[in-house]
């Protein structure tokens, strides 16, 4: 049971219930879809890029609590950040969910809510979907990202 509470931390349940930045973004300069065929998680991520800065970010779509909370937390973390900062967060997130426990609380910030995910290998893809999609959007590709 402790494992479950580790996975479904309050932050995750809260972001799942009330996702932040959960809307379309008419001003978006980039729009990329992310899809996980295994569970049907499907999100569209909108980015409003101002040079190197993420001026605004939003998302719509549906999926499990882990994927939705991850998209929501991500959007609130990268808003106003530079591309490099967003990429660095993505890198930290990836290390966290694949079992690297060497990251400090400072380095993680709100990402810490996902520290239980690495114990659930089947859910790593759910947690990573939005981040991979963001990564693709930042790289400038307009296509569908799949985590399968």
């Amino acid at each position: 049971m402790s494992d479950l509470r580790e996975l479904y931390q309050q932050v995750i349940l809260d972001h799942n219930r009330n996702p932040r930045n959960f809307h379309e973004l008419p001003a978006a300069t980039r729009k990329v879809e992310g899809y996980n065929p295994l569970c049907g998680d499907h999100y569209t991520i909108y980015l409003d890029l101002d040079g190197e800065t993420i001026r605004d970010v939003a998302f719509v779509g549906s999926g499990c609590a882990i994927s939705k909370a991850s998209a929501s937390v991500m959007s609130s973390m990268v808003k106003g950040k530079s591309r490099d900062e967003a990429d660095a967060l993505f890198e930290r997130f990836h290390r966290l969910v694949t079992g690297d426990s060497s990251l400090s609380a400072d380095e993680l910030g709100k990402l810490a809510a996902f520290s239980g995910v690495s114990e659930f290998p089947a859910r790593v893809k759910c947690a990573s979907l939005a981040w991979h999609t963001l990564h693709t959007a930042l790289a400038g590709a307009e296509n569908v990202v799949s985590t399968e």
Partner: protein
Amino acid sequence: MTTALIQKDHQAADLDVARIREDFPILGRQIHGKPLVYLDNAATTQKPNAVIDRITRYYTHENSNVHRGVHHLSEVATAAYEGARGTVKRFINAGSEKEIVFVRGTTEGINLVASSFGRTNVKAGDEILISAIEHHSNIVPWQMLCQERGATLRIIPVNDAGELLMDQVRAMLNERTRLLAVGHASNALGTINPIREIIELAHANGTTVLIDGAQGVPHLEVDVQDLDCDFYAFSSHKVYGPTGIGVLYGKEALLEAMPPYQGGGDMILSVSFDKTTYNALPYKFEAGTPDIAGVVGLAAALDYVSALGLPSIAAHEHDLLLYATEQLEEIDGLRIIGTARHKASVISFVLEGVHPHDIGTILDQEGIAVRTGHHCAQPVMMRFNVPATGRASFGLYNTRDEVDALVRGLERVIEVFR
């Protein structure tokens, strides 16, 4: 004969489930410190010792290639392999062993028909009829065939309970309908289709019928002659046998007229660079060394099921279905998807505010295995406007206690999420 003899009367109480569970070693396992509650039987079933031991015995004492050697072991292996064909023939009451083709599973059986029957009989402008609740393996091979031949795939719609609209079947059958392919039972919803009536309608229209029996054979007595279906495909692993093996039944006259599916050894009589003569049925469709151990394991599984008796198994599973339906309907916010009057022991459901994937993870922590997702039936999910469902599917070894465990697990899910 033997199978008919050991079949018993149709009482659920006939099955001594506590004893039966001892036949399945995996059911003694703990998952995350809890006893395994295996409710994913529509995906694959667990295997009894009778099957596991038979495969071990084959590899320990009988292993050899079939139809090739004159040495003793090859004769033993061939006898076991061909004996298994006889077991399958009796199990589904086929007219002849020539009509039993061993394939990898339902998927390969359907692909064989699409490829071999389809390419010779389906022309541009023809139509193939399937239903809105098919498994992807009874959709994609027909799409591929239609694309290749310039034919049209048409879809029989279902009502909100997940039942085929029979007046639509009548309306859609026409002089262009070459083939109709439907499932015996739906893996996603549990619906048992009225295949006898469908076959009659199709035949009255001169249309050939394939039944995807993946979810039929484990739960329902199948008599292919009585049904008069033209093709019937099923998978061993869903009826307590090993993975990697399955059966395509086809009427002899149809199979006889069809070209081979794959070329290679075993499917030929003679080969020269000018001319190859194909082997007789069913070998024409069994190119290469077959899954001999799988075939003997399948026969052991069918013997096991026959000894318990499908009517008793069906009665027990029906009891579980009714009990589970009743119990699940009590849960606040739970909705069952698929409420056909005739159902196999499959319950698809959604829980308000909780994605099925999260349900699956939480139940797993309780040792409960259910399937979550689209169940290889994305069009069904679209029809019922859900991204995915949770699915509990029951087999002959499940119990009411396990249904209770599922209900407690779902209450736990609600607790985590509310």
